[in-house]
């Protein structure tokens, strides 16, 4: 389609040229209404009238008005854009500050938690140590008491044995045993046992 158009355009251009030249010789033979010289003056006259009117309207009324509208809008849009960026920057700042605060308080909370934990651990360790010491002391006391009781019991046991033995001897042999001797013998026997 474009090719067809271009071909016709080219041929028309050459036809125009030839007609243009023929026109100089004989205007009446020109085939196209475009080369009818008798129609030139009216076209040019009205072209001038129309164009002057158009130019006056454009230059005095229409274009200054559109220019003013465009300029006002450009300024408005420019200031709007500036304000939008300012607000965006402000929002960014606020968000950054908020995030910073948030991070700080989170870190602080962690610190507090950690120190509380440590204090608690220390306290419980101390308490545990105190308790342990106390228990150990008590155990030691108890052991000492047991040992004392044991030795006391042992001492009593010798007396009881001597008494028992002297009684037995007295019954069996009818001999009165000297309590001191009986005690010595019992101590020796116990020591041997």
């Amino acid at each position: 389609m474009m090719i067809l158009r271009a071909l016709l355009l080219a041929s028309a251009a050459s036809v125009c040229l030839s007609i243009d030249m023929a026109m100089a010789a004989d205007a009446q033979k020109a085939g196209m209404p475009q080369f009818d010289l008798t129609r030139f003056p009216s076209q040019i006259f009205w072209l001038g009238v129309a164009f002057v009117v158009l130019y006056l309207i454009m230059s005095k009324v229409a274009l200054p008005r559109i220019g003013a509208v465009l300029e006002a809008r450009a300024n408005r849009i420019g200031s709007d854009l500036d304000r939008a960026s300012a607000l965006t920057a402000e929002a960014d700042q606020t968000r950054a500050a908020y995030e910073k605060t948030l991070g700080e308080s989170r870190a602080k909370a962690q610190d507090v938690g950690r120190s509380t934990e440590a204090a608690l651990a220390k306290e419980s360790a101390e308490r545990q140590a105190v308790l342990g010491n106390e228990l150990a002391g008590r155990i030691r006391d108890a052991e000492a008491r047991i040992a004392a009781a044991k030795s006391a019991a042992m001492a009593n046991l010798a007396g009881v044995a001597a008494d028992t033995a002297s009684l037995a001897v007295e019954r069996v042999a009818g001999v009165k045993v000297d309590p001191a001797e009986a005690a010595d013998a019992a101590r020796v026997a116990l020591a041997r046992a």
Partner: protein
Amino acid sequence: MSETDPGKTSSSSSGDDFAARLAAARGRRDAGRETTSDVAARNTGQLGLGFRIAVDLLAGVTVGVGMGLVLDRWLGTSPWFLLVFLILGFAAGMTNMLRTVRANDAARARVAAERREREHKDAR
């Protein structure tokens, strides 16, 4: 459900979107509109260019012939001025053609360069 999470994604993406649109709007305002010769370079095909330069040549020849005829009639030297000015007119037509083609090439090159630059910027 996660893809249509209404709270977080939409607010963050709309924030990014807003920033991008703001930047685009500023860019548009600062860069200005595309140049008018771009329109010509993009829209006039080879055939259009061919016709344009044909008219350029024809106009040069026409003026040359016209001047030759006028000079010959004035000085009574027919057909010498016509011959000389036919050749000069042809040369002037060729000059016109050359200028049109060169301007067209320049506009084309500028459009291509701008397109590359834009693509480069987009890629970044």
